[in-house]
C-alpha cells in the first residue's frame, strides 16, 4: 500500500520540470533598445541577441561568416504586449538577465520615459542596475551597428562607460536605470550619455567590420549628455558643460583640460577630492553654497610647467578663478533653461526643512542665492619638470 502511494506520488516527476530550459534554448539578450512613436503610439523594442556560436573562446576567434549579435525588432501597442508578440520573430526564449545596456530613442525620451522605466523594473529577471543611454536621433542605426575590437556591441558600450567614468568627468556613475528612477521620483535631474552611430560608409557585415582597419567609420560614439527631468529629455549638454556639471554634482573623477594662465596655455589634469554642498539661511533667503577641492597635476602638460612656488601659487589662483567663473556661467545657463542641474531644490529641502517649503512651493530660481567656491591645489608633477 505504501509503495503504491509512493509510486503515484513519484509520477509527479514524470510531467517534466516546469521551469527547466536548456541553455541553448535561450536568447541571450545583451542590449535592449526602446522606442515609441509619438504619432501612432506604437512601441518598439529592439533586442540585440548574442550568437554563442561565434563568440571568442580558447579555441580562437571564429571566421567572419557568423555575426556576433543579431538585432530583433518587435513592435506592438504597448511594451507589455510585445512580450507575447516577441515569439513571432524570436526563435528562442527571451533571457534578459545578462543585458548590459538600455538605449532609449530620442523621441521616446522626449515624450516621457516613465513607462519604459516601469517596464524594465517590472521584469523579474531583468536588473535595473544597467546603464541607460539616449540615442541621438532614430534608434535603429544604433542597434544595427557592429563594433571593432569588442565583438559584442554591448560589451563595447559597457567597457567604454566604465573607462569614461574612471578616466574622465564626462560620464557619471549614476546613469543606471535605478538611479534614473530614484531621481525622477525625487524630482531631481539626471544626465544620461548620448550614443550615436558614426557617419561614413558603414561595413555591411561583421566580417567586413572585423577586417576594416579604420575603426572610426561604422562605429558607435558616446558623447554629450541628455538632460532628463520629470521623466523627459529636456535638453542637451555638450562635452565642456558635462565637465562642469559633473564637478558641480560632486563626481570624483579626473579630467584633463587646457587652461589659459598668464597668457600661456597649459593642459592640467584636475581631480575632485572633496565636495561639499549645503544650504543656509542668509538675509531671510536660502543660500546654497557649493565648495569643492580640486587637485591639479601637470602630468599631461607638454606646454608649460610652473617652476617656482610663486608661479604655482599664481597658477592655483588663476585656475580657481577660471573654474569658478565657468561654473557660475554654467549655472546661469541652466537656470535660464529651467533645469535644476545643481540639485538646489534637493539641497534646500534637506538642509532647510522649515524655510525650504516656501521656496519649493514658489519655485522662482531668483529667490535662491548660489555661491560656488573652488579651492585648487597643485599636487603632482609628471616625468618632465622643466620645458
Amino acid at each position, binding site marked *: 500500500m505504501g509503495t503504491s502511494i509512493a509510486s503515484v506520488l513519484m509520477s509527479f516527476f514524470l510531467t517534466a520540470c516546469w521551469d527547466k530550459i536548456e541553455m541553448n534554448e535561450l536568447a541571450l539578450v545583451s542590449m535592449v533598445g526602446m522606442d515609441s512613436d509619438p504619432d501612432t503610439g506604437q512601441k518598439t523594442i529592439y533586442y540585440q541577441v548574442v550568437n554563442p556560436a561565434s563568440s*571568442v*573562446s*580558447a579555441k*580562437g576567434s571564429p571566421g567572419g561568416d557568423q555575426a556576433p549579435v543579431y538585432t530583433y525588432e518587435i513592435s506592438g501597442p504597448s511594451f507589455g504586449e510585445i512580450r507575447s508578440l516577441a515569439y513571432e520573430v524570436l526563435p528562442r526564449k527571451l533571457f534578459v538577465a545578462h543585458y548590459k545596456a538600455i538605449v532609449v530613442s530620442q523621441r521616446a525620451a522626449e515624450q516621457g520615459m516613465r513607462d519604459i522605466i516601469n517596464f524594465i523594473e517590472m521584469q523579474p529577471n531583468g536588473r535595473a542596475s544597467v546603464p541607460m543611454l539616449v540615442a541621438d536621433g532614430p534608434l535603429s542605426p544604433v542597434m544595427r551597428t557592429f563594433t571593432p575590437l569588442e565583438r559584442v556591441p554591448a560589451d563595447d558600450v559597457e567597457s567604454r562607460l566604465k573607462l569614461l567614468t574612471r578616466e574622465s568627468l564626462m560620464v557619471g556613475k549614476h546613469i543606471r536605470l535605478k538611479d534614473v528612477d530614484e531621481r525622477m521620483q525625487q524630482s531631481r535631474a539626471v544626465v544620461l550619455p548620448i550614443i550615436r552611430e558614426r557617419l561614413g560608409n558603414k561595413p555591411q557585415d561583421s566580417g567586413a567590420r572585423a577586417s576594416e582597419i579604420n575603426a572610426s567609420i561604422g562605429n558607435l560614439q558616446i558623447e554629450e549628455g541628455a538632460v532628463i527631468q520629470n521623466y523627459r529629455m529636456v535638453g542637451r549638454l555638450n562635452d565642456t558643460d558635462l565637465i562642469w556639471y559633473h564637478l558641480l554634482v560632486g563626481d570624483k573623477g579626473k579630467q584633463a583640460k587646457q587652461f589659459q594662465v598668464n597668457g600661456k596655455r597649459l593642459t592640467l589634469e584636475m581631480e575632485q577630492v572633496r565636495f561639499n554642498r549645503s544650504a543656509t539661511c542668509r538675509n531671510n533667503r536660502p543660500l546654497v553654497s557649493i565648495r569643492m577641492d580640486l587637485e591639479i597635476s601637470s602630468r599631461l602638460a607638454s606646454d608649460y610647467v610652473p617652476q617656482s612656488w610663486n608661479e604655482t601659487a599664481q597658477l592655483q589662483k588663476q585656475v580657481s578663478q577660471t573654474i569658478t567663473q565657468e561654473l557660475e556661467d554654467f549655472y546661469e545657463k541652466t537656470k535660464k533653461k529651467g533645469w535644476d542641474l545643481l540639485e538646489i531644490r534637493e539641497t534646500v529641502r534637506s538642509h532647510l526643512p522649515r524655510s525650504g517649503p516656501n521656496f519649493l512651493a514658489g519655485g522662482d530660481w531668483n529667490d535662491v542665492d548660489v555661491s560656488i567656491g573652488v579651492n585648487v591645489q597643485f599636487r603632482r608633477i609628471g616625468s618632465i619638470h622643466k620645458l
Partner: protein
Amino acid sequence: MEEDQTVHCMYLESLADKTVIDDYVLKALMEGTFLEVEQSGVTGNHFVQDYSFSSARPEELLQQAVDALLAGQCVLADSAMDRIRLIHAVSLNHRQIEEPKSESTVRGPHEGFTENIDMNVGLIRKRLRNPRLRFEKLSIGDQTRTTVMLAYLDSVAPTFLVREARQRLLAIRTGSVLESAYIEEYIQDQIWSPFPTMTNTEKPDVVTAHLLEGKVAVLVDGTPSALLAPMTFFEFFSSPEDYYQRADIATFIRWIRLFSFFIAVFVPSMYVAVTTFHQELLPTQLLINISAQREGVPLPSLTEVLLMETVFEIIREAGLRMPRAIGQALSIVGAIVLGQAAVEAGLISAAIVIVVAITGIANFVVPTYSFGISQRLIRFSFVLLAGLMGLFGILCGLLFLIAHLISLKSFGVPYLAPAVPVSFSDWKDIFVRVPRPWMNAGSLPRFMQRLKGKK
C-alpha cells in the same frame, strides 16, 4: 627447598617474550635451579633486579611492578624469599628493516629505521663505532611514557648544544608522545615560522653523517623518524645522495634544487604581478599571445591562479590517500581533464596550467618533505601580495621573509648561515659540493664552531 613455595610469575603476553620466560624462568623455577642464576648482587644488572618487600612501601613496590609489567618485563613475586624480582624479557617485535618510502636513493644504503628504538640505536651504533657516541634515555609523556633517546658524539658536539637540547626535552610537559613530530613542536625555536628548524629522517646513515658534524639526534620509540638539530636553511637542500655521487653532478643538482625553490615560491606570484600590473615586462609577442588566450576567459588572473593552485593541492592530497589501483585513473583525470579540458572549455587560460604544473613539480624537488610544506604556504601569501600590489607587493613580502629568516635561529645557529653571517669557507658545501679530498672532513662548519664558543 623442602616445602612448597608459591612464586607468582606475572607478565603481559603482548609485550613479553614467552619463549624466554618459558625457557629460562619457568624451567629454572621448576628444576629448582633458580638459586644458581641469581646475579642480583651485581650492581647495574638490568637483566634481573631484586626488590625486597621491606625495602620500600607497598604502594611504591606495586608501582614499580606495574611499570615493569607495562615495559614488558616479567615480575616474580616470591613471598618466601621476601622479594620481587624483575626480569627483562621484553620481546623485540619489529617490522623488517626496509627502505623508507619517502627517502629512496639511487646509490647508497637502503636501510631505514623501524619503530623499535633499540633496533634503531643498534643501526646507528654499528655505523659509528665510537665509544664517545652517547645515547641519553628519557621518558616523556605522562600517559604514554615513551622512551626518547638523545644522541650525540661527545667529542664533536658543542656542549652548549647538548645542554640546550637536553633542557628543552626535559621541559616538555605533555600527556602523549606518539611521533617525533610531537617532540619537534615542543623543542623547536619558533612556533610561528613556516620554516622548519629541525629535520627528520628515517635513514641511519643520514643520522650518522649529521652526528659527525656535531649535531644532536632525537630518537623516539614507536616511530622510525629521527629528529636532527640544528638545521640551517641551506642544509635542507642537500640530500645524502649528494655525497654518494660525483662532485660535479652533485653541485649541479644542488643548484637545480635552489633554483626549484625559487620557482616553487615565486613563479605564480610573478605571473600574477607581470600579467596584471607590469605587462610591459613581457616580450611583445608573448604579451599578444597571452592576451589572445585570455579573451574568452571569465576570471581575472589572480582568481585563476588561486583557483588552480587550490585544485592542485586537492589533487595532491587525494593522491596521497589513493589506493594504488585507482592511482592511474586519478593521474589521467587530474592531468587531462582538469588541465586540458578546462582550458578548452574556456574556464581558464592555458598559461595558468603551465604555471601551476611547473610550480607543483618544482615543489617536490627539495629533498625534505617538511620544507616543501613551507613553500606551499609562502607561495599563497606571495600570490595574494602580488595580486594586491604587483612587484612592489612581492618586494615587501620578500623583505619581510628575509628579515624573518635572518632573525630565525635553530638551537643558537643563525638560520641563514653561512650566507648571513658570511663565512666563505662554508660555501664549499652549500652552493657547490667540492670533491671529498678538499672537504676538510675533520673540522666542523664555521657556524657549529661558533656554537662551541658559546657557554
